[in-house]
């Protein structure tokens, strides 16, 4: 065991893992965390706590992660490279571990121009791949990035993101390989809608033997409405929403769109359960945590194993 986290145990026992996502509040209210957490409790094995996602200021992800631990749940602490240099990042990693955080997801982060402070100064001292290597170094070698020893190693289960739909497609799997080479233990992918392309990507990863070295959790986001599908198709960078998703939502009554979205999501999960190289799913119900129980239930992912 690298970290002994619940997520790591489930994955290492070969069980199909389910992770969820929780966005911290744009304010200092701890209550918001516990409220959202209630919907996810018992439904998922670990909850990603986003780090100022889309570059919008929110409660810090390590603090929100700690609040989640108080709720008796396991956080997956997200860390982006946009806002902190290597000094702050290493210090946050130490602090997060000391507070009981055992999973970390290493990301580059959305560019600040998308957020609420578009003219803030970017940091990007290191990139996500270098961050993975840094956490691994801290964990396995008990040294900082500069090779100086640290007193107690933060034994984190290291996650990384992968986007099978980003360009250039042929390079994506190589980027996955780089993340594995740097020491990532698990991958959570970008929201998947285009199943053909995803199958292509995973089969290439299988061929290269990558899926034997890492647990890949397929990312899904249920469509709340036709409007959301259209917005994601047009406006969200790196998102591949094929026309058939739009068509299918168009085909049902407006009131039924949410339930249709969930149905599509569940069908995907069913396929992932059988797919070679997939170790679990990551359900990103954006500001829709309350429907996660329904998804998990309809996708027959309950009860969650205890390990």
């Amino acid at each position, binding site marked *: 065991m690298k970290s002994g986290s619940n997520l790591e145990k489930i994955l290492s026992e070969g069980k199909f893992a389910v992770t969820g996502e929780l966005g911290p509040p744009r304010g200092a209210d701890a209550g918001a965390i516990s409220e959202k957490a209630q919907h996810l409790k018992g439904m998922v094995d670990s909850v990603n706590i986003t780090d100022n996602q889309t570059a919008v200021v929110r409660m810090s992800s390590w603090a929100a992660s700690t609040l989640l631990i108080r709720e008796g749940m396991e956080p997956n602490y997200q860390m982006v490279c946009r806002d902190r240099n290597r000094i702050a990042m290493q210090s946050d990693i130490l602090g997060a571990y000391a507070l009981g955080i055992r999973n970390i997801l290493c990301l580059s982060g959305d560019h600040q121009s998308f957020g609420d402070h578009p003219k803030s100064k970017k940091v990007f001292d290191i990139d996500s791949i270098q961050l993975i290597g840094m956490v691994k170094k801290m964990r396995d070698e008990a040294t900082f990035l500069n090779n100086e020893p640290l007193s107690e190693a933060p034994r984190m289960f290291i996650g990384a993101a992968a*986007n099978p*739909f980003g360009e250039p497609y042929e390079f994506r799997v190589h980027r996955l390989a*780089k993340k594995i080479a740097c020491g990532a233990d698990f991958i959570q992918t970008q929201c998947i809608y285009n199943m053909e392309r995803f199958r292509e990507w995973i089969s290439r990863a299988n061929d290269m033997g990558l899926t034997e070295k890492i647990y890949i959790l397929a990312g899904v986001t249920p469509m709340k409405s036709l409007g959301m599908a259209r917005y994601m198709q047009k406006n969200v*960078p790196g998102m591949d929403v094929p026309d058939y998703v739009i068509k299918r939502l168009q085909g049902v009554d407006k009131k039924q769109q949410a339930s249709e979205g969930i149905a599509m999501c569940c069908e995907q999960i069913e396929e992932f359960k059988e797919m070679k190289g997939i170790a679990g799913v990551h359900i990103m119900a954006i500001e829709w945590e309350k429907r996660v129980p329904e998804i998990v239930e309809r996708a027959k992912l309950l009860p969650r194993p205890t390990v």
Partner: protein
Amino acid sequence: MIIAEIKSLDEIKDLISGYKKVLNTGCAGCTAVCLAGGQKEVESLNLKLSSAFKADNVPFEIDGFTVERQCEVDFLAELDPLVDDYDALLSMACGAGIQFLAERFPHKPVFPAVNTTFIGVNKDVGWYEERCKSCGDCVLGLTGGICPVTMCAKGLFNGPCGGPQNGSCEVNKDTPCAWISIYERLKLQGRLENILKVYEAREWEDQIQGSMVLEQYKSRYVKKAE
């Protein structure tokens, strides 16, 4: 070349208001080449400033003098006999030139008339594009001659983020993704292995004021250890 653009007239006016006699110094180096701070711009700006102050009924006098380069002491020396007659200096050189000018004439207030924007190239007449962040540790040899520090919005070193679409950067649809360009150029040259390796966290060289002496001149300027 260093690219600069002229500040707005209002801003320049605000900066020098209160000074009755000003010398506007042009630079025939980079800022002249990018049409921001050569003799012609000095003349234009002086005319605009004197007209603007005249309209406000404020007594104001301005002259112009353009030197070869304000980043070189021998050329700044040309200003020595002139400067005493003026209350303040305006400079149309890049930020480096302006500071060197201010350093030479410490008793005179020096004001910038241009904003220094970037190190770039001349795409066409009056059209410039940034190409270098002067980070001090060039990776162009690895990346097929395309700079990830400058051209990638996030300055990533290990390939594109998840965002590019239709070859464009997620931050701006009209900007090509630097990493896609790098990938394609290396593929074209059969050098993809360059970016399949992990590029480790780098030692940033641009954190403090840059300063250097060429190896062959060290004996002149570097104090020997005793």
